[in-house]
């Protein structure tokens, strides 16, 4: 017992300085993509030939685009064509599906600000009920990691609740497999109002590499990535309740 006590004191505080300090991202971190204005349809086709996901890259209204809701951030397009770059911008969470689409020539990205009064009321106490519906466990594990001392999201009042009865949001991961449809619907229905759905990871947002099943409701927050980096998730959750 004494040894355990001493070990605890020696360990000290391990919680990262993020936030408010910038997160410690790996040197090869691939965040929000940037596309040159003058990217041609041919170049997009060339990049599409190496892209693992259907519809992640495209060309419409004379402009190239990348849909972060489908992208798995593998960087193959950027390796193929210098007109696409993955920046270190990790603040990827958005409140509208359309905001996940990055168009050629777009600059000066500012993450959207929460205006939903019901969501803002959850600042300081946001209870999440995780539902994995066909997820590969990567999104689940990197959400779970937010509860460890290194990230300690509980200091902002954000927790994973054991029961949907105690939760404000369903934190959905995975492409909503057919066999999880009814369990997901029931879990969502079991939450008291006001309630939200958060779609985390490419699978939950668009199906990603798979086909997505139906949502119980429109998501109020989209967190892209495969899986999203914990810093991306934590920042998105904080911004969702107006704490960032």
């Amino acid at each position, binding site marked *: 017992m004494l040894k*355990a006590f001493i070990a605890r004191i020696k360990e000290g505080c391990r919680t990262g300085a993020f936030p408010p300090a910038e997160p410690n991202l790996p040197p090869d971190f691939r965040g929000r993509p940037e596309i040159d204005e003058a990217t041609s349809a041919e170049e997009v086709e060339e990049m599409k030939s190496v892209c693992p996901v259907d519809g992640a890259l495209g060309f419409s209204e004379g402009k190239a685009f990348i849909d972060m809701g489908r992208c798995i951030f593998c*960087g193959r397009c950027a390796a193929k064509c210098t007109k696409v770059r993955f920046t270190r911008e990790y603040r990827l969470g958005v409140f509208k599906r359309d905001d996940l689409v990055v168009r050629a020539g777009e600059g000066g990205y500012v993450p959207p600000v929460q205006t939903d009064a019901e969501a803002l009321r959850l600042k300081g106490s946001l209870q999440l009920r995780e539902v994995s519906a066909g997820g590969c466990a990567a*999104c689940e594990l990197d959400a779970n990691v937010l509860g*460890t001392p290194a990230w300690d999201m509980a200091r902002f009042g954000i927790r994973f609740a054991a029961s949907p009865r105690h939760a404000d949001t369903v934190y959905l991961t995975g492409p909503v*497999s057919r*066999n999880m449809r009814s369990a997901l619907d029931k879990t969502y229905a079991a939450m008291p109002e006001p309630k939200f759905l958060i779609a985390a990871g490419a699978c939950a947002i668009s199906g990603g590499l798979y086909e997505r099943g139906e949502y119980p409701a429109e998501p109020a927050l989209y967190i892209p990535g*495969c899986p999203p980096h914990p810093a991306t998730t934590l920042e998105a959750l904080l911004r969702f309740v107006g704490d960032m």
Partner: protein
Amino acid sequence: MTELFSFKTIEEAEAKLDSLGGYKDPAEVVPLKGAGAHEVAVGPVHAGVIEPGHFRFQCMGEDVYNLQIFLGYQHRGVEEAMVNAGGNIARQTALAETCAGDTSAAAAIAFAELMERAFPLRFQAPDNEALRLRNILLELERIANHTGDLGALAGDVAFLQTASFCGRIRGEYLNMTALLCGNRFGRNAIVPGGVRTGDAADKYGEIKTWIARVKPELDRALKLMFHEHSVCDRFDGTGRVPRDVAESIGLVGVARRASVEFNGDVMARALVRRIEINEAHTKIAKLIGGEAPASETPRFDGLKPDGFTVVVSTSAAWRGPLVHAALFSPDAKMVRYKIVDPSAHNWPGLAWALRGEQISNFPICNKSFNLSYCGTDR
């Protein structure tokens, strides 16, 4: 390791794929009757941040008489998607990596070796540097998962120091993986023919220093737990799968080793993980120190144009052997793909471990195995 089998007919080839096995749900819930008999149903949605599965604890009084495990909630058609990806290697690699997220590196290796064996002309043999990075990613994956699970075991017996320390230390190993390839799960790096990251070798020095700092912290965290009487008391003798049972139901990997080399209880599975953490560190040190990794893929044969070919590729995933197998038609088209996660063999072991235990011992039995739902369901 890869093996190549040639068949005259597709039926024979399919029989080979089917013989690789997989998890089958109990056909039906067998009711338990009698005074004191009752049943506790859990899932598919569990209390923690974990994947879905349905458990039926059939109890006589306080003791679990039988546990029935029903899976399939995570089925999303990985194998069909592999076939439908029709030659899009990037897509197939990503599909392999997302079959079970915690086994991404092992899966990418299995898929890459399979394709290298099937198409020796299309994919060059990975060079030593590529093999080195592949193996380092595989071992980092092993360490991160074992560390996380040992921490979770500590958490389940309310020994929170080790639970907290390991939770943080697991993250350090994931970040090492991210340093090497930009993704915490070792994704987007291993591809048929080699690796995608060019200059990983420059980063090995940093990894070495990083491990030198973190490994003693991990050792301390584990020693603290394994030397604590209250923890040992909970682990010892709990969830025991005897050697003969382990062999007859065909357990693999960590669970089998725990039953063969030790006595097959939660403590045994925890010890095997600790041993494997040390073995993985030794291996990484050798790889970084310049030892040439063994290439296991023979490159002299490919698909035969006059029959059906099954290529079976096995990689040493952290739970046990992960098997990827593909059936190719005479015109070299992939017509079936099969993934057998080590978990598929070990679910019956978890069910066995619970026999005669109290339901309250389920969490530590479960964590000691920590089987993959998505890997089993595919």
